Each structure stands twice: as C-alpha cells, then as structure tokens.
C-alpha cells in the first residue's frame, strides 16, 4: 500500500495551493469578502428581506429600492463565509440600474453556473460572479453562494409580485 500520508509536523511543508482551492477562493472573491461593495442598509427601501442558513448561521439582509421596473439601489448586510459574502457583494453591485426582469435572468444564469454549466464561465453578463464558478466543484458550498440570490428571488421572483413586498418583509428565512 502506498497511500499518501499527511506529512508529519516539522517535515518539509508543501507550500503549493491546490488548483481546486485556488479556483474556489480566487483573489476577486477574497477582495469582495474583505471589502464588500454595496454594504449597508437603505434608508427607504421598497423591498427588504433577511434570510439565514440555519445549518451554518450565515445571515444576510438584502434591501432594494425599485422604481418602475428598475432596481435603483441594492444594499446588503450580514455575516457569513467568504463564498456567501463575496456572492452577495458582487450581486448587489450588479443589481443597481438593472431591470427587474434582467435581475431574475441573472439569478437563473448564476444558479446554472454554480451547477457546472461551463459555457457560462465566459458570460460577460455575469461579470465578477463568474469567479464563483469554482463552487460547482464543492457541492456542499453551493447553498452559501446562493444565499444572496435566494434573498433576491424572495423579493422579486416570479412567484411574488414586486409591489406587495414592501419594507420589513422577513419570513425568518428557513432555507
């Protein structure tokens, strides 16, 4: 049996970073994690929701100001891992100035990316969100990357009209 062993402490350390991990935690992801964009709360949002992942304790509040069919402002606050916070940061930045229908399409596209659709890795509409394609190799982390988008779906998804979700709507978020 020549099974690989973890090297004993003090032995020469392998300082290389495995490709899958480098792919999962790309620089742009770490940058959004440490310097989140669009972070905070809106003073007068038309839509607000807080959702959590009860298994891990991640919590995200997403607030939107929607005028007509355009998302004018998007802010988030909360806590979580690098994957969930980078994802919601990238999403919130992308949402501002986006039509509601396009935001829905973005959500669908991003979900497909996370489930491994390779052709989307070059999709310009996804922007920085493309950097999260590495999550597809870590199925247990997909729910992290989708927490922000789950908030978005709850707020503007096809199932609910965008007008009856005014501020403070908080179903407690059992996702």
């Amino acid at each position: 049996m020549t099974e690989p062993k973890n090297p004993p402490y003090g032995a020469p350390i392998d300082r290389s970073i495995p490709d899958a991990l480098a792919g999962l935690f790309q620089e742009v992801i770490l940058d959004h994690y440490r310097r989140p964009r669009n972070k905070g709360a809106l003073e007068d949002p038309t839509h607000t929701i807080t959702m959590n992942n009860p298994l891990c304790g991640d919590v995200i509040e997403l607030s939107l100001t929607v005028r007509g069919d355009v998302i004018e402002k998007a802010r988030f606050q909360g806590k979580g891992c690098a994957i969930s916070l980078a994802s919601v940061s990238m999403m919130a930045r992308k949402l501002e100035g986006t039509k509601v229908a396009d935001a829905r399409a973005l959500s669908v596209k991003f979900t497909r990316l996370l489930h491994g659709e390779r052709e989307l890795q070059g999709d310009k509409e996804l922007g920085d969100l493309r950097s999260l394609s590495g999550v597809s190799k870590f199925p247990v982390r997909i729910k992290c990357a989708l927490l922000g988008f789950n908030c978005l779906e709850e707020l503007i998804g096809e199932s609910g009209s965008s007008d009856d979700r005014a501020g403070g709507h908080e179903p407690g978020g059992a996702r």
Partner: protein
Amino acid sequence: MSTVETAIAVAPYDVERVRADFPILSQTINGHALVYLDSAASAQRPYQVLDAIRLHYETSHANVHRGAHELSVRATDAYEGARRTVADHIGADVAEIVFVRGTTEGINLVAGSWGTANVGPGDEIVLTKMEHHSNLVPWQLLAQRTGATLRFVDVSPEGRLVLEDYGRLLSARTRLVAVTHISNSLGVVNPVREIARLAHEAGALCLVDGAQAAPHRELDMGEIGCDFYAFSGHKMCGPTGIGVLWARRELLDEMPPYQGGGEMISSVTLEASTWADAPLKFEAGTPNIAGAIGLAEAIRYLDRLDLDVLHTYEMELTRYALDRLDEIEDLRIYGPREGRAGVISFTYKDIHPHDLATILNHRGIAIRAGHHCNQPLMKHLGVDATARASLYLYNTREEIDALCDGILLSARVFGEIA
C-alpha cells in the same frame, strides 16, 4: 508473574492497534489519509460493534418481550443483557436504564413526562448559557406549556460556568437544574457533582447532559449524585439511534408514560390501560434492539481498553493539540486551558470556519464548522461560528500535525502568508 502484570499495567496505549479496529479510518479523502476530528458530532465504530450488530441480524433477530419462540427469547436476552451492560457500566440499577434514541430524546422524555407532571406556573428551571440546543429547547417547550420560567447560569470569559450564579438563581421555586457534563463547544468539564448538590439543597432535581462525557470517562451515577443522566450511543463507538436515559428508580416509578403503544403496557381495555413497570413503561413500540446490542458491545470495547487509560491518552493528545495550535499566529482557542476535554473550538485570522473546513477537507481532514447547536453561547463569545476539532481514542499526534499544516494552508489560500 508479577513482572508480566507490571509490564501490562504500564504498557503504553497502542493507538495504532486501536485504529486497526476502525475500518472506516483506513481510507483516503481527496488523496490524503482521512483525519477524522469530528468525533464530538459522531464517533466511528470498531468492527467488534459492527460484527455484533450483524451477528444479531444473522442469527438472533425477532421482536423482544413477545413471542415464545427461540429467536424472540434470544433477542430478548440480548436486549435485556445490553441493558445490564449499560447499568453495570455506569453503576446503576438495571431498572433505571431507559433505552432512547439518543441524548436529545432522553432529555425530551424527562421534560415531557416528569416536567409535565411536576412543573407549573411560577416554577423555575435553571439552565446554563453553554447548553447544547438539546438541553435548552425541550425546556423552552416545557416552559411554554406550563408557564414556568427559565433561568441561566452565566459563562465566564474563560469559558467556565459562573458557579456563584447558582446561589443567586436557586430558590424554593426551582424545580430542576439541567447542565451539560462537558461542553460540546468549549470542552470545559463542569463540576456536576457540586451542581447536583446545590440543586438538592434548594429542593430541586438535577439533570446532566452526558453526551460529551460518556464516551470519554468512567461514570458512576451514585458518585455524581444527579437524578437524570442522558447520553448517546453514537458518540461512544456505538450505533446511531440508540441512547440512554438513566433516572433514579423512584422517579421513574412515579413518572407518567412518555409515549403510548405496545411494550409499555400492563393491560389495555378500550377505555384505559395500565402501565408496565419502568423502564419498559418508557419504551413504547419495538425498541432499537440491534442498537442496544451494538451499544453494549461498544461499552465492552471501551471497558476492555479501560476508560481511565483512554482518558490519560486523550488528555495527553489534547495538551499536544493545544500546544501546537497555540504556536499558530492569530489562532484563537475558546475555552479554558485546564479542566477541559478534547473538544477544541477555535477561529483563525479572518477566515470563516466554513471556508477553513472546506480547505481542511481538501487535505482529508474532517472538522466541524458552525455554531455547534450552541447559538446562544456563540453569541455570548462574540463569534458567529467557530471551527471545532474533537479528539477520540483513535486520533494521533500526526493527525494534529496534519491539522496544523492544513490551517497554515488556509492562510496561504487566503493570501495571508506566503
């Protein structure tokens, strides 16, 4: 002769021989030898336990306490024999051993049966701020049902119970004091004997959550002096779905049934029924026969190795782990340094515990990340989540070394070190 005996007595603990009993450990994950550091969530089981379960199903399975046929007699003997093994192991009477699904069901049984019969409006239940959700939520439900109030002993910054709080909180209104023997996130060992004494002085009963203690130490119910003690099989090398509630005989005799059904009755008419004596009164339906048999085998396995010897080994390993982790810059360990078990919660730099766990998993290292069913305590500690490495009889220093290397890898992935 005496030299041989001495040699046996001082023989070092042979962890490699123990590891050879656990087939699951000899595999690779992501190209690395599996390093299993999540035994506080669920331990692994040796082939002796797996064989006992298989042998039961292959040769002796039938329903218990029912038929007059040979297999039913064998199954009943094995099931009741398992109860005897558990009783002997914890210094209890066999009639005081109720088989349940696990610690959680054991506590729910006490809350549902004893609690409903004995707790009313204005009564108080004294808990602590370090309880697992399983020793908190059942009492919240009971309090909502009965109008009782929950009180909480504080946790010091070092991670110990503030024992003085018992003096402040205990009163004639206190019906029950419930406390964990060993914290599942801080690893701190609580002075349950002292707490049981304080509870009794106030005229209250004492329940101890033994989920993290039973796998690691010799237990004697008489010595602890509590009234209820609950633990799980799957954390002590036994199967999932089996656990034990121990309660003093006279309490079990008085407590009303927890669930109704077969096995727990004495006689039944369409209008009413009378109950079997404890413990069967609390075991409605076909019990987890194979689970009890597997648990008994796990106890025999641990007893053969000697829990005191295991304890010494685990304490040495824990000290080694704490020392190694201490060497890592920006790594913060929660809980006290002394008087603790091999459950080590920590955070590292600004790396979220889930990200750390993902990176460690890439090296074949299994740890827990999150709130450990301990949300109020996490809030108290001022963290959202921690990483948790928990040690057991099959872990080695090399595995601790692998953990430390993996932690350093996470810093490289996050661009913190070269």
